[in-house]
């Protein structure tokens, strides 16, 4: 029986990796993947708590998160392709037309 704390630690480690990737990488694709990591780390902790508390709420929430993540990935990739057509780069620091 794996204790709850292991799941929580796993979840926070993955979340931190995602956060770091999101902040540190310049490639839009890598940033995307980092966001997915963060979302899934949350999913892990949700499922873990759901099992621990014997409540279905957490698992239902996970389905919503997966759905939203799928939609987000679709839109995000579409934006990315549109961007790439206009400007042959996926590096975020080269996309700064709205710089003040």
């Amino acid at each position: 029986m794996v204790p709850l704390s292991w799941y929580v630690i796993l979840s926070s480690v993955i979340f931190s990796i995602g956060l770091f990737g999101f902040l540190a990488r310049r490639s839009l694709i890598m940033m995307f993947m980092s966001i997915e990591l963060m979302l899934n780390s949350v999913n892990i902790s949700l499922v873990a708590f759901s099992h621990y508390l014997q409540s279905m709420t957490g698992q239902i929430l996970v389905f919503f998160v997966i759905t939203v993540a799928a939609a987000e990935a679709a839109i995000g990739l579409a934006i990315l392709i549109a961007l790439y057509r206009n400007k042959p780069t996926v590096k975020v620091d080269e996309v700064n037309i709205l710089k003040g």
Partner: protein
Amino acid sequence: MTKYVLIPLLPLISFIINILFGRRFIKHRAHWVAVPAVAGSFILSLIVFMEVLNGKTQDINLYEWVVSGDFNVSIGFLIDQLSALMMLVVTSISTLIFIYSIGYMHGDGGYYRFFAYLSLFVFSMLMLVMSNNFLLLYFGWEAVGLCSYFLIGFWFHKKSAADAGKKAFIVNRFGDFGFGLGVILTYLTFGTLQYTEVFEKAPLILGQTINFLGSDVGLITIICLLLFCGAVGKSAQIPLHVWLPDAMEGPTPVSALIHAATMVTAGVFMVARCNPLFNLSETAMQTVAVVGGVTAFFAATIALVQNDIKRVIAYSTVSQLGYMFLALGVGAYTAGIFHLYTHAYFKALLFLGSGSVIHALHNEQNMQKMGGLKKYMPITYWTFIMATLSITGIPGFAGFFSKDEILWRTFLGGNLGKFLWILGTGAALLTAFYSWRLIYLTFHGRYRGDEKIHPHESPPVMTVPLIILAIGAVVAGWVGIPPLFAEHGDKIGEFLSPVLGHPEGHGTHAQEIMVMTLSVIVALLGWIIAYNMYIRKPDLALTLGTRFSGLYKLLYNKYWVDELYSITIVRPTLRLAEKVVLGFFDGVIIEGIVNGLPALIDVFSQKFRKIQAGLLSGYALIMTIGAIFIVGLWIFMR
């Protein structure tokens, strides 16, 4: 009841119809609306006058106009001897002028507009004379001022006409400012604006004084002087007479209307209406008398040398108004109103006659370019003669009775009265001279104008009103024959006495005959001098003009009053407007706010634009820090 309402309402309806539908539909048929309307009010006024003659006076409130706490003002009419007479004068003269205008304004582009404003003018004046409280009087007062602006500047594409309209309006503002204060002070003092109540309470405040510029002045004196301020402006007395001669820029029927019926007499009427107030203040009465006497004389001196036919008559009006105020000032209210009534006829006649001349000569107004018109326009000539005989005070004609009454009453008014009587008699001499000078220059001698113009008599629509007015100029005075000649001859004095009282002071018959004889002598003297200067020795006028060139210039330039005002009031005001209003207030304050606000926003935005770094990771970092902060807050603050 209905007829009282209809009297002012008919001209108002005529105004509304003409102004709304005139441009598109009525056009040159505007008189078909206006003339019946004003004639209708004339007939109704006549009926009302007959009723008043039988002793039926009324004070009716029609409509609660302002109800605010203790402040109540209603639209109401006071129909008594004074207002009935005024209504009759206003509507009768107006009707004739309206008919005359059909001929005079024929073919003018603004024909409908002319009749619309004319109707509004009559409406305003009727409201003014019929009102039973000060606020409605003030309404009429301001409305006639507005109409005078419209009509003096009727040919507004001409700059001089537009300027004259503005001048009339602005000069009147000066007087009306005082008048407005007077009305306010009346309300503050008496707590009401109804004539009857104010006049009833007036003796109660007789002793009260207020501190004005460090000295105690009787409250009633202040009220009277403030009200008189308005009269000075509206009735063109010195020092606010400057607008009236310039008002000649308007079409001639307008001049006639302003001078005879609807505007300048308002001041005289108002002072007469407020006689219970004025009677209580010796100072105010003396002021009125002195202003009147001085105006009568000085305006007459200016009229001596003017060359514009209408200007001569305009100064003559100022002078005659001076007589009226002189009469009011010495307490002879009936004589003042009597002169107002006779003056209305002969002055309207003079103006319409001069309009007929101007019409015949295609808008030539300079008398030096006229002459010899007698044979071309006999009707105009003979009616003009009637008016002149009347205004100069030849016995038997209307002006004689009223002017003589005024001079006689002035003569009885103590030492000040004697002095003013001399001024008045002097003015009578001058009046005779300039009136005959006008006749001789215009109608006698040989024609000096443009050869291409062939003078002709005016159409009947213009000459018939002249003839009717000429009859008025002769017979109008017959209701005021002095008791010296006929017992109960002074019918108008007896008629008006319930409102205006009997003048005080008594003199011997010998004195009265002396005063009368003297005024007839000066009238004839003026005539003889004019005859000698312009008919027998036509060079004499020129010789005198060059010999006394200083005096001639002084008079010709109207004592430089306009120039004086230009230096002391107009230019400083303009400079003030330029420097303070335009330069400081508009330039610094308003511009400062309008330009300063965007500048401020610009400064801040220069600082805040740095936030928009355009770096996605930067935004993400801030977002993360924010999220951590909020979560931390939630954990630690719980």
